[in-house]
C-alpha cells in the first residue's frame, strides 16, 4: 500500500508541483552523475526492472484481498539506492496511461517509492551483513521500508488535505470567513465563538487523519506482510540460483566476516 494511489485532483497544486520539482532536481543531478561515471549501460537494467515492476502487478495473488506485487524494495536491492528512482519513475509514468494512479502525483509517487527502495536497499545491506540470513534480511528490510513509506504517504496526504474544506467552492468561502473570525476574535467573544465553532465543526467537511490512518493500516498491514514475504522468497531464490546478482552484498558480507574473525 505504499503507492500513493491518490487520484488526480485531491492534492493541492503546490504539493504535487513540489514533488515534480524535487524529483526533477534529483534526476538532473543523477543524469549528470551517470554520464560522468560512464554508467549509461545501466539503462538496460533500469528498463528491465521497470518492465518487471509493471508486469508482476498482473500476477494473481491467491488471497482474498485484491493485492498486487510492487517489487520496489527488490528494485532497490538490484539497482541500488539511486538508480532505482529511474525505474520507479518509468513504471509510474506507464501506469498513469492505464489510469492506475494520477499524472499529477508521479513526482510525489516516485519520491515516496524511491525512498522506500533506497531504505530497503540499505536495510537489507545492513541486516544481511550482520545476520547472514537471506530471507530474514529481505523480509525485515521490506517490512521496515514499507512502514516508513506508508507514514510518508500519510504525511503527504495530510499535508495536502488537512484544510480539505478548500476543496469545493461552497466551503471555500465559509472557511475564509471562519478564519477571519478566528483571527479577530478576542476574549469577549470567546464563548460565542466557541459555540459557533463547535457548530461549524459538526457540519464542516474535514479530512479525518485518524480514519485515513486506520484505513491505510488495515489494508497496509496485509500488504506489508505479503510483499515482505514475497520479497523474502524472491531474494532467497535468486541467492540460490544466481547469486552473482547479489554479488555486491556478498562482498560486503565477506569483508565483515574477515573483520569479525580478525577481532
Amino acid at each position: 500500500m505504499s503507492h500513493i494511489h491518490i487520484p488526480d485532483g485531491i492534492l493541492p497544486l503546490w504539493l504535487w508541483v513540489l514533488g515534480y520539482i524535487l524529483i526533477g532536481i534529483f534526476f538532473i543531478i543523477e543524469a549528470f552523475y551517470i554520464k560522468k561515471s560512464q554508467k549509461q549501460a545501466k539503462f538496460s537494467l533500469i528498463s528491465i526492472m521497470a518492465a518487471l515492476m509493471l508486469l508482476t502487478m498482473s500476477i494473481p495473488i491467491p488471497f482474498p484481498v485484491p493485492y498486487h506485487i510492487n517489487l520496489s524494495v527488490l528494485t532497490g536491492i538490484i539497482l541500488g539506492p539511486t538508480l532505482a528512482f529511474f525505474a520507479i519513475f518509468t513504471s509510474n509514468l506507464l501506469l498513469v496511461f492505464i489510469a492506475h494512479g494520477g499524472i499529477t502525483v508521479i513526482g510525489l509517487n516516485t519520491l515516496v517509492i524511491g525512498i522506500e527502495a533506497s531504505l530497503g536497499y540499505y536495510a537489507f545491506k545492513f541486516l544481511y551483513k550482520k545476520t547472514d540470513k537471506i530471507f530474514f534480511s529481505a523480509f525485515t528490510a521490506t517490512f521496515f521500508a514499507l512502514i516508513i513509506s506508508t507514514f510518508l504517504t500519510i504525511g503527504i496526504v495530510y499535508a495536502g488535505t488537512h484544510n480539505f474544506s478548500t476543496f469545493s467552492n461552497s466551503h471555500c468561502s465559509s472557511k475564509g470567513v471562519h478564519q477571519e473570525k478566528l483571527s479577530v476574535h478576542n476574549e469577549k467573544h470567546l464563548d460565542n465563538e466557541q459555540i459557533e465553532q463547535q457548530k461549524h465543526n459538526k457540519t464542516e467537511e474535514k479530512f479525518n487523519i485518524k480514519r485515513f490512518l486506520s484505513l491505510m493500516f488495515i489494508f497496509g498491514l496485509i500488504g506489508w506482510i505479503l510483499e515482505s514475504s514475497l520479497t523474502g522468497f524472491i531474494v532467497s531464490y535468486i541467492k540460490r540460483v544466481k547469486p552473482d546478482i547479489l554479488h555486491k552484498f556478498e562482498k560486503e558480507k565477506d569483508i565483515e566476516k574477515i573483520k569479525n574473525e580478525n577481532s
Partner: protein
Amino acid sequence: MKIADLDYYATFGNTFLHKVPVKLKLFDIAIILISALFIKNIYTLGVIYAFLLLILMFSGIPRLKTFKISLYPLIFASLFLFSVNNLTLPTALNLIFKVLCISTSFAILILTTSYIQIFKAMSGFLPDIMVNILFNTYRSLFIINNTLDNLLTTVRLRGGVSIFRPVYSLKTIGNLVGFFVIKSIETSEKMYEGLKLRGYSDKVFCSRD
C-alpha cells in the same frame, strides 16, 4: 487489463481517434487535466465527463473495457472519501467527477495511441538517459511478457496455487517471480550486448520527433 492488450488496440485500431495527431491528443488531455483540476463547479465537471463519455460511445474503441479501466482510480478515491468527516454529496461528486474526467481521458488516449507515439512526443523535453529507458522499457515489456505468460500457464497446468496453503503458495509465487527476475536480467544483459554489437554509442537510440 494487460498492457500488451492495450498496446494491440492502440497499434491496430482504426478509429478516427487513432488518426488524430498525437500532439493534439496530448494537448487535449492537458486541457482536460487543467480544467478538472481547477474547475470547482460540479455541473461544469459533469458536463465535461458527459462529453468524454459521448466520445467514448461513438469512438468505436471497446467501450466496456475503456470504461472499466477508467473506473479503477475510484477505488482509491473512495478510500479517501471514507476518511472525510461530514462528507456532503456535492463534495463527493466533485471529487468523483474530477477523477473520472482525468481517468477516462487517459483511458481513451491509451486505447488509441501507442506508448511509442506518446514517448516520441515526450522525448523532446526528456534527458537522453530517460528517453533510452522509456523506449527500452517498452521493448523489454513485450519480450519478458511472453516469459511471464509461460510461467503463469505452467503454474496453472501443474496444479495452480491454492488459497488454503498460503505460505506454500507464497513461496511458489516467490520462486516464480525470482525465476522471472533472473531471466529478465539475463535478457537485459543480452539486449545490451546486442546494442553494443550494433554500434550503440551511449547516445539516444531512437529518433526523436
